[in-house]
């Protein structure tokens, strides 16, 4: 398989790079100074693209690679892949579901606790050397808060299971109601927001879910409400979120993702009720290795004409 060209869209994991290099002819797209020239030269040898949450395979790239057979994403999200184009051209697509579910759900709860109990802020405070005994402020209790989940897929269910252990009543919004689920269903995100204290984004990013957390939803959530985003930055109307936080119309936010990563709106740095993370939802040694193994496994299966492990298309 050493002659099979695999194009890696951006740096994502050195173990994955290493393992891909052992098996394939790996091209690191980000090291190429002149991308169109590179594609013109190598288009006939590139049969696979490996992408992630930052970069994948858009229509332009797909068109430039006539021998492309498979796009394997080092993520569960597929928003950087033109799925319609892949379907049209018979290009297979795989992602990394399940292996990262627990990590993302763990982080969602970690963000809730960090925002409500001001863990990061108080850590900074202690490190400043300014702590005088008994002078820290009162924060907000987490146990018992109403948690509203947008998207009750694998990650949403895992968040619910954890929040339940904190006696949090769970409600959700989903494209369709799930009658077998005991949690309360709301047919719109606005209604969900009006009836919860902490709103968690846990759905896939599609055209329908773009800016699913908008001004109306933020208003419904209110000055004591908290937004937790472990989905994709574009799920939230970021300028609306920022002004709501700055103007104290929203109580707080825990954000692992942003509309234009790695850029973070400057205004957020001045607030004490936000926690800002660099897209680390699945960022553990164990999970990234499992994700990498899944990418390798899918590519090997494809080129050996075996069933794909985690196909999407």
């Amino acid at each position, binding site marked *: 398989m050493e002659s099979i060209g695999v194009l890696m869209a951006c740096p994502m994991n050195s173990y994955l790079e290493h393992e891909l290099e052992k098996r394939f002819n790996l091209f690191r797209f980000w090291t190429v100074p002149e991308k169109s020239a590179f594609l013109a030269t190598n288009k006939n040898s590139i049969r696979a693209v490996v992408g992630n949450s930052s970069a994948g395979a858009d229509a332009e790239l797909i068109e430039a690679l006539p021998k492309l057979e498979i796009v394997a994403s080092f993520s569960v999200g597929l928003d950087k892949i033109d799925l319609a184009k892949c379907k049209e051209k018979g290009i297979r697509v795989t992602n990394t579901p399940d292996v990262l579910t*627990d990590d993302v759900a763990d982080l969602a709860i970690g963000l809730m*606790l960090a925002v409500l109990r001001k863990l990061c802020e*108080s850590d900074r405070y202690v490190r400043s050397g300014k702590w005088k005994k*008994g002078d820290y402020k009162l*924060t907000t209790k987490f146990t018992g808060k109403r948690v509203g989940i947008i998207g009750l897929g694998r990650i949403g269910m895992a968040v619910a299971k954890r929040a339940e252990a904190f006696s949090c009543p769970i409600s959700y919004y989903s494209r369709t109601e799930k009658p077998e689920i005991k949690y309360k269903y709301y047919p719109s995100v606005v209604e969900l927001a009006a009836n919860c204290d902490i709103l968690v984004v846990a759905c896939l990013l599609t055209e329908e879910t773009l800016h699913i957390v908008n001004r109306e939803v933020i208003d419904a959530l209110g000055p004591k409400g908290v937004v937790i985003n472990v989905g994709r930055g574009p799920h939230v109307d970021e300028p609306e979120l920022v002004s709501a936080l700055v103007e104290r119309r929203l109580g707080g936010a825990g954000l692992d993702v942003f509309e234009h990563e790695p850029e973070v709106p400057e205004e957020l*740095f001045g607030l004490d009720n936000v926690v800002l*993370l660099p897209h680390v939802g699945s*960022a553990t*040694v164990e999970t990234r290795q499992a994700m990498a193994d899944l990418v390798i496994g899918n590519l090997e299966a494809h080129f050996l004409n075996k069933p794909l492990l985690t196909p999407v298309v």
Partner: protein
Amino acid sequence: MGYHQKPQNLSKNLQQDLLLPSVLVLRSPSVPSFFFSKSHLQAHFHLLDPLDSPEPTHSFLSRHAASVLALLCVASTRVSSETLSLLPSLKLVVATSAGLDHIDLGECRRRGIAVTSAGQVFTEDVADFAVGLLVDVLRRVSASEGYVRARLWAEKGPSPLGAKLGGNRVGIVGLGRIGSEVAKRLIAFGCSIAYCSRKEKPSVPYPYYPTVSELATNSDALILCCSLTKETHHIINKGVMEALGKEGVIINIGRGALIDEKELVKFLEQGQIRGAGLDVYENEPHMSQELFAMENVVLAPHAAVYTLESFAALQELVVGNLKAFFSNKPLLTPAQLE
């Protein structure tokens, strides 16, 4: 004007003497103000507060408090046998914390003085905090946030990877109410639970280890949920940390002196344990400065109980215990005095 009419023409102080039971308030000026809600209490009781007087406390007590039946001990203000000796009529000490190591319980028992604690008002908050600290340490939440705030994400790319929570063997040191609530939460994250305690609890579904060392040997993370006593002082020492090992994490939401802090710092400096989440320290608010530079440590300012909700509940409980006492009803949260 009869004795049973409302004496409206009298001074406010005298009205209070006639209508409201007296409660002596003992609070060290350094304790957090949240523990003492003056206005809330004054609605129900006549407060004797030495801090409102220019007199030294000792002399205030000798002069004013001879007939006082109830004492409100605010936060960790010490109530020693010496203090108690100045209060010959005392029958009740109301504490505002769950831990009572600042009160001479032995002397209270000898004198037949009842003591009430904060009961369970803080339990859930402390358990939440312990879980928050563990997730923070393993997933590098505070460290990654610092990375973003230092503008390193744009400059250097992804931050260092953290460690998965699921599959971790969590050892709870002291499986009381707080320890049980911590266990219940961590199970939902896919952790397994074991514990050590003074006595094994047969009704509990988790494996028991008779010593902290054995627990540490079989754990990936230790969460300290026990009270501070002579026996538990420095219960986390060099031997226990060696048994826990290089991948081990320690979370302390109990009392600072449960850990030999100097040893902990050495172990952290030498990479002999993975990390720590600390809400309490041996000499608050001071701590080893070496901790400030460590990314694998999360530091909190003894804030595990500090929520608006629990302090509102605390005020209700304090008033409730005092009212029960003065109307000869059962106390709401009496402490067992050993």
